[in-house]
């Protein structure tokens, strides 16, 4: 671990006794140690995948119960927000390597193609139908085609949240850093 290299020679000052010495998130020592919170990083490591899975559940259950693309996208987006708060922009950049506008564009394309697809079968735009497939072992699986629209919205909203984090989070941090250097 990079942060614990000089631990034996140079004991930590008393006021920094609670500074974490290990990397709990992906990208290691991503911000100044004094700003890190051990509790938050540990929690994030545990919660982040769980929240993402929960968002997928919300996405799929949306047609029959409370949920849907928008709320699922927001929940997934909140996971990234948590990641940003715990690990800072560097950690978020390490987790998400795609550009936010690309995510937004992909989501929009998926949603719009889903809206236009029924035309190929002679149905009105935005029509939905139920697909039923007999899967081996699992039995009969049903799929509402509106789920594709929800997937598009899901991706779109994640992209929007990532873009917000970029514009209002990382961007402001950068501005503050620049201002600090100027002063």
């Amino acid at each position, binding site marked *: 671990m990079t942060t614990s290299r000089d631990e034996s020679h140079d004991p930590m000052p008393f006021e920094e006794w609670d500074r974490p010495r290990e990397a709990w998130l992906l990208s290691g020592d991503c911000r100044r140690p004094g700003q890190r919170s051990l509790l938050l990083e540990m929690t994030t490591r545990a919660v982040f995948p769980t929240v993402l899975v929960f968002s997928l559940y919300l996405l799929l259950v949306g047609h029959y119960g409370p949920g849907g693309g928008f709320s699922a996208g927001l929940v997934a987006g909140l996971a990234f927000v948590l990641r940003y708060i715990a690990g800072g922009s560097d950690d978020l950049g390490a987790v998400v390597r795609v550009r936010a506008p690309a995510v937004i564009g992909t989501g929009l*394309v998926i949603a*719009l193609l889903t*809206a*236009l697809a029924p035309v190929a079968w002679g149905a*009105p*735009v*935005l*029509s*939905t139908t139920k697909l039923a497939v007999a899967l081996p072992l699992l039995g009969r699986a049903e799929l509402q085609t509106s789920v594709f629209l929800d997937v598009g919205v899901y991706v779109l909203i994640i992209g929007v949240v990532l873009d917000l984090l970029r514009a209002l989070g990382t961007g402001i941090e950068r501005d503050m850093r620049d201002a600090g250097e100027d002063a």
Partner: protein
Amino acid sequence: MTTILTLPVLLPMLGAAVTVLGSRWATLQRVVGVVVLSVVAVLAGVLLVVADERGPIVTELGGWPAPMGIALVADRLSALLLLVSTLVTLAVLVYAIDQRIADYGRGTASTTFHPMYLMLCAGVSLAYLTGDLFTLFVAFELMLTASYVLITRRTNASRIRAGMTYVTVSLLSSLLFLTAIALIYAATGTVNLADLAGRIGTLPSGLRSVLGLMLLVVFGIKAAIVPLHFWLPDSYPNAPGPVAALFAGLLTKVSFYALLRTQTLLFTRDEPWTLLLVLAVATMLVGALGGLVQNDLNRLLSFLLVSHIGFMLFGLAVFDAAGVAGAALYAAHHITVLATLFLVSGLITRRTGTVALDRMGGLARSAPWLAVLFAVPALTLAGMPPTAGFVAKLALLEAGAAAGVDTRIVAGVVILASLLTLYALVRVWVRVFWGKRRAPLPDEDDADEVVIGTARSSVPMYAATGGLVAVSLAIAVFAGPLTALTARAGADLVDPVSYRTAVLGARASR
């Protein structure tokens, strides 16, 4: 045919998505934007022809029947305005693309400009085509949100100030719109316009007036009706040239279309609407007089824009088939004229380096083409024969003269306001094109979006402006068929039986 109806909305959205994805490839963005808008223009033409021959075209999204689901409707009025608007957006896009090429070089792509431009076009299409009040709200939000981004991109201090005013006022009117929708839904239990047309009539008259006035205030703010106009001359002049042209051409007219649609469909009346007559007089005079004292070219045009909203209001206020038809024709020609004037203003600014009229001069000699490009839309706006503006004003005056004493007085104000407009534009002409030639002023702020004082304007920028001039000339040349078309559209609006039957089918008789 019903699929075609959704494409003017879905294609620009798809184009926006593609331009976001391809935000590194500038050429792709340009091609997608121009192709999408060209296709939409063709589709709008098809819709206009079909709607004129066979009556309103309706599609129900997702196959859900009309009062429950969302219906898109294209009748003569909406198809005509959609066609004109798309031609304007296409020309302005070409102009904007070439301005960006001239200023930043061929390789610069933008993650925001093209997607937001196309989103705005999608919102405009949806606003024209929607058959339900809430979708109209969504369309306005789509359009306005894109416009917020376009007006505040690459901000400097003055644009931030203008953007703040614009965003805040628009947001307020949107929230009022939502409030009005909630009240209308609470009173009637539906948001479908055709369904509402049947149900609003059964409400107590007081409640009906309140709902009608709320919608008047909402669209009055968005369409800049005096006394709700104050935000417009403050914000539009600060936008970059093409964006100002887009806003001036489209946004207020879409709001006026919404006003026209809701008032004629939901709150029908048999005689001229005195309140709206008064507002029309105020709007015409305040706008024209305000324009007279301006020294900033774009502010002057913005005030004239406000003034001419009053002309359309007058047509609506007469509230018979002829008046509404005149308003529709006026809106169609006004979209092209204002966009052209703002584009020309952009060209002038690029040449002179300033928007201040008292610092320009002698452009007639140094840029004769620019003088022609300015003169035609200026004469059109002032309503000189034989331009499109004359045809449209004549339709309004005829309607006003036939409707009664009040409207005859207001028709007099229409002539007065036209003369004031002419005077203001003659002032611009004398200041800008005559007099001694002056050296262009240097660009004060290099980091700004608008590069001025360089006189670098590419041929396509002139061509796009010239194309819009051609559209407004075409309106004058085809004045006969167009007047007949808008007369049929006006008859539809005043007696919306065909609209209701097309949307609701047999359920319309309820």
